[in-house]
C-alpha cells in the first residue's frame, strides 16, 4: 500500500505512549496496533551504556526502504520507526517500531519483519561502555540476526 512511514533518527528519548496516541487518534478503521520497543540491556550488570553511531542520511533512507518493503508485503495503514543514536544508558529505549493495520496478523508480521531487517541492515553500530569505567568493544553482529532474515525470503 502507498503509505509513507514516519522515520525519525534522533538522540533524544521518545514517548511510546504519545506515539501510540498520535497514530490511533482520529482513526476508526484500524483494529490492530503493535509496538516493539528495543531497550538497552545491562548484560548481567556489566554494561553502563551504549554509544550508538549511525550513518546520517543512509540510516533514514535504509529504514524507509525497509518500511516500504513491509508496507508492500502486508496491508498496514501506518508505520512509525524511531531509532536513537548517541549515548544510551541501560534501561533506556533505543528503538521503537509501531505498525497499524486492520488485522492483527499484518501488524505483527510487519513489525517483526522490520525489526529483523533493522538489526542487520540499518547502518547503526553499538559500542559498549562498561560499568568498570572502561570503554569496551564494538558489539559484534550476531549470526542469528543475519539468519533471521532468511525466513522472510
Amino acid at each position, binding site marked *: 500500500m502507498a503509505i509513507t512511514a514516519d522515520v525519525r533518527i534522533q538522540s533524544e528519548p521518545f514517548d511510546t505512549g504519545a506515539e501510540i496516541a498520535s497514530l490511533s487518534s482520529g482513526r476508526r478503521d484500524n483494529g490492530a496496533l503493535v509496538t516493539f520497543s528495543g531497550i538497552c540491556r545491562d548484560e548481567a550488570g556489566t554494561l553502563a551504556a551504549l554509544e550508538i553511531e549511525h550513518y546520517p542520511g*543512509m540510516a533514514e533512507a*535504509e529504514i524507509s526502504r525497509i518500511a516500504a518493503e513491509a508496507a508492500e508485503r502486508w496491508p498496514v495503514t501506518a508505520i512509525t520507526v524511531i531509532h536513537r543514536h548517541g549515548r544510551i544508558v541501560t534501561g533506556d529505549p533505543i528503538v521503537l517500531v509501531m505498525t497499524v493495520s486492520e488485522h492483527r496478523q499484518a501488524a505483527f508480521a510487519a513489525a517483526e519483519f522490520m525489526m529483523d531487517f533493522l*538489526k542487520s541492515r540499518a547502518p*547503526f553500530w553499538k559500542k559498549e561502555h562498561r560499568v568498570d569505567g572502561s570503554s569496551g568493544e564494538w*558489539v559484534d553482529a550476531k549470526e542469528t540476526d543475519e539468519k533471521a532474515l532468511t525466513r522472510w525470503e
Partner: protein
Amino acid sequence: MKLVYFAWVRERIGVAQEEVTPPESVTTVRDLLEWLRSRGEQYAEALKFPDAIRVAINQEHAGHDERIAGAREIGLFPPMTGG
C-alpha cells in the same frame, strides 16, 4: 569520490571521511578495498578481512562485485548492529 567510514573501520583508518581519486583500473568495490589496503598500515589493518566489510554506494547497500563508476559517496563499515 567521497569515502565515509564508520565504527571500527573509522577508528582503525583514523579519519571519518576523505576524498580519493582511485586509478582507472579500480572498477569494483572489491578493487577499491584492495587499492585502499595498499595505501598504508592503518588501511591494511582496517580492511584486512575484506569479507567483514559492508559497503554502501550513494547510501544504498552494495555487494563487493558492484561497479563504483559514478559513485559520489561510498561508505565502508562493519556488519551493522541496529535495532
